[in-house]
């Protein structure tokens, strides 16, 4: 696989027997010998370790960093307390989503984690908008690990007892196996757990010490995808992109009141006119959960219809798979808002056949965060 980048954990993945695939310009483990289904179930039952070092880590420094970031995202950055993290998204002039991200207030700087496929564009956007008042540092000498699942707390607390005290979306600097790590209590599986930014040269040793815990197993991108879909979480480039607004994507909860019409810092981000109008008046379409009634998975691209035959497609599946915990097929997609109510009967066309599917509440499996 020429021209693909490798994370600091590449050799370890091979030693663990991973099947490597190209993903967002990186050679990444899609699964280990355990297989996608068992990896998924293990993460929900105990704990899984994910290499997410392909994701972008960025630091913003400067007295106006929070104000500056608020010009690019519709979130309350200034009001985010020290040691706390928040979910956000970069928007464009049309109200679409350019990328989604996590940002944390780490005292004298903001720490951002952005998607691998968007990181170059994100860094360029941040530099163009914020420099020179704000220093934009793209971190290339750190790996990123995620430890997820009900046993994640016990496994990580074995190395640093203080992580047990952290609550969902707390961030802290923690010494793990002798390395200075930036830890957040968050993740993208619907489970309790941590994301750990670790110096590249200390990453393998930390991963190995975590994997030496009998409760922890390595998890590939395959199970990462089914875990996040069961948790109702969006995958950028699939469920959200530059053409979907946060309101259509059912992410309005991520726009704090203060940035909405009538709020103290209303608007002032790209596409604010479109997004704030949609928050007030609704959007023509909405991202929903979809549960096929049969056993056939409805994959990304499946067209959605109102009737069992005839008519034009009204929507489309943006993520679809079999849910190992759900033990049934599951999907997310966009439908007209008037058809977005839970329980609405629709049809997905799979291999020329219209199969019944119902609009369902998200997440498909209950979240297990440590609030």
């Amino acid at each position, binding site marked *: 696989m020429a021209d693909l980048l490798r994370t600091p954990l590449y050799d370890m993945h091979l030693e663990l027997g991973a099947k490597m695939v190209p993903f967002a310009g990186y050679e990444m483990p899609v699964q280990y010998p355990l*297989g996608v289904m068992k990896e998924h179930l293990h993460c929900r039952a105990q704990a899984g370790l994910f290499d997410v070092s392909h994701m972008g880590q960025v630091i913003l420094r400067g007295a106006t960093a929070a104000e500056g970031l608020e010009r690019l995202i519709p979130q309350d950055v200034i009001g985010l307390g020290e040691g706390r993290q928040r979910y956000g998204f970069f928007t464009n002039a049309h109200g679409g989503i350019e990328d989604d991200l996590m940002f944390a207030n780490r005292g004298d700087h903001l720490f951002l984690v952005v998607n691998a496929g968007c990181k170059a564009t994100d860094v360029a956007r941040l530099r163009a908008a914020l420099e020179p008042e704000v220093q934009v540092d793209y971190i290339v000498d750190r790996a990123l690990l995620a430890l997820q699942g009900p046993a994640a707390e016990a496994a990580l607390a074995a190395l640093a007892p203080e992580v047990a005290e952290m609550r969902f979306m707390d961030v802290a600097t923690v010494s793990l196996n002798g390395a200075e790590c930036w830890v957040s209590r968050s993740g993208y599986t619907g489970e309790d757990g941590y994301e750990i930014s670790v110096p590249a040269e200390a990453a393998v040793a930390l991963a190995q010490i975590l994997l030496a815990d009998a409760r922890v197993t390595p998890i590939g991108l395959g199970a990462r995808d089914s875990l996040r879909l069961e948790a109702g979480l969006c995958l950028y480039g699939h469920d959200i992109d530059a053409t979907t607004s946060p309101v259509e994507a059912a992410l309005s909860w991520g726009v704090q009141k203060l940035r909405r019409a009538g709020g103290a810092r209303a608007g002032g981000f790209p596409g604010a006119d479109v997004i704030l109008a949609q928050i007030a008046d609704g959007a023509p379409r909405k991202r929903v959960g979809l549960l096929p009634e049969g056993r*056939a*998975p409805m994959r990304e691209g499946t067209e959605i219809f109102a009737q069992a035959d005839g008519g034009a497609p009204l929507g489309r599946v943006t993520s679809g798979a079999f849910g190992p915990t759900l033990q049934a097929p599951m999907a997310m997609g966009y439908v007209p808002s008037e058809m977005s109510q839970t329980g609405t009967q629709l049809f997905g066309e799979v291999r020329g056949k219209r199969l019944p599917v119902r609009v369902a509440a998200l997440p498909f499996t209950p979240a297990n965060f440590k609030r």
Partner: protein
Amino acid sequence: MKYTEEHEWLREEDGLIVVGITEHASEQLGDVVFVDLPEEGTEVTKDEEICVIESVKAASDILAPLDGEIVEVNQLIVDEPSKVNDDPLGDAWFFKMKPSDLSPMEDYMDEAAYKKFVG
């Protein structure tokens, strides 16, 4: 036992041909979560797509290896798709067909040739 390049195995049994997928195919597919089989009594043409297998990764087709009639399908793998991973050469056969033309069997691989084929 004969093997196709599509990773199906064919076994003669009481004048019928029993068809399933190979262990190699089931490993490559990963965990199978859905199987769609043809109706019993369907007349099929060689290379026609007649079954769908969906795994956690993707959907793939099974082609009719011969012309003929589908006389029996295996409901077990519809009810428990994971059997395709557990016992692809045994319990998890897909269908039995009554061939109208057995001549393609000559071209299909024997076990040694198939082992070489999958490397």
